[in-house]
């Protein structure tokens, strides 16, 4: 499910989305660090090897959006641009405001070790085992009301598409 800022100019969307994602990424890291001068030189102190019997993992609980929406400044509102995708993975906003939604998931990984069965199960718990649509959907909002009035399959029968780039104009 995607959200957009109503009344915001569509050209600003990618930048806003990028800022939002970057903020999330930074919030996930915790650089308590030490003296940065120790990180250079011939003998930087390396962390000790940690071996686990069961590695400490925490699986985020999968929850639907429901009625919860991000808090936004006065005069703006957040609503779903489109829903009902098959594992949407990445977005690309074209210069004319059209949005390409890449519906994709990785191919089923090989099971090389018994651990991989457990890994698959944990991945499934985290909601990442859903089948990808293997296609790119195009959303077009012709009247600028923030609700796309055209939704078409742009490319179909792909094999785990990942990135999208616009070549030429």
């Amino acid at each position, binding site marked *: 499910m995607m959200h957009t800022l109503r009344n915001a100019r569509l050209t600003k969307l990618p930048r806003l989305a990028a800022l939002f994602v970057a903020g999330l990424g930074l919030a996930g890291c915790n650089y308590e660090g030490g003296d940065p001068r120790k990180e250079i030189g011939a003998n930087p102190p390396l962390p000790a090897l940690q*071996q686990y019997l*069961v590695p400490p993992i925490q699986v985020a609980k999968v929850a639907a959006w429901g009625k919860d929406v991000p808090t936004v400044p006065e005069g703006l509102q957040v609503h779903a641009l489109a829903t009902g995708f098959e594992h949407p993975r990445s977005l690309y906003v074209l210069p004319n405001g059209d949005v390409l939604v890449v519906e994709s998931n990785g191919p089923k990984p090989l099971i090389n070790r*018994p651990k991989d069965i457990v890994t698959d199960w944990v991945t499934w718990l985290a909601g990442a085992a859903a089948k990808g649509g293997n296609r790119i959907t195009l959303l077009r909002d012709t009247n600028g009301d923030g609700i796309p009035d055209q939704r078409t399959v742009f490319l179909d029968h792909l094999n785990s598409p990942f990135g999208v780039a616009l070549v030429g104009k």
Partner: protein
Amino acid sequence: MQQHATIREASFIGDADLRPARRPRGRPIHSILVSFSAAYFAGALVTDIVYWQMPDVMWERFSIWLVTAGLIMAGLATVAYVIDLAGGRRIDRPAWPRAIGYAIAVLLALTNAFVHSRDGYTAVVPTGLMLSALVVVVLVLTALVARALKNRHRLGV
């Protein structure tokens, strides 16, 4: 002379008394499954030694699959054993030392499976290799002790 013959006859009766009660239909299933798991664990020790000497990740994967297969067989053996117990099969005296020794070996093998699930060389060397060897040592000792106890029991010492 007469007395000697009587004793021999008595010990024959003792044997004849044990056998039909314990083995009405050949070997119990759990015992067959235990043999399978022991073979898998021994195989894991071999592939561990090979990996230690020749670090090709294929051998490490052999090891973890062998340990896993041994654990699955051990689980099936436990189920079969419980069914045998519930079915009222007579458990002879050396069964408990054997069961305890086997349980220790299986717990060690379970730890070994987690150690073998680590990534890279340290999945085997040195902890995994030592655990694999320990499992085999415990299994061999258990078999020896069980056999000694069984013989003592049969001889009536």
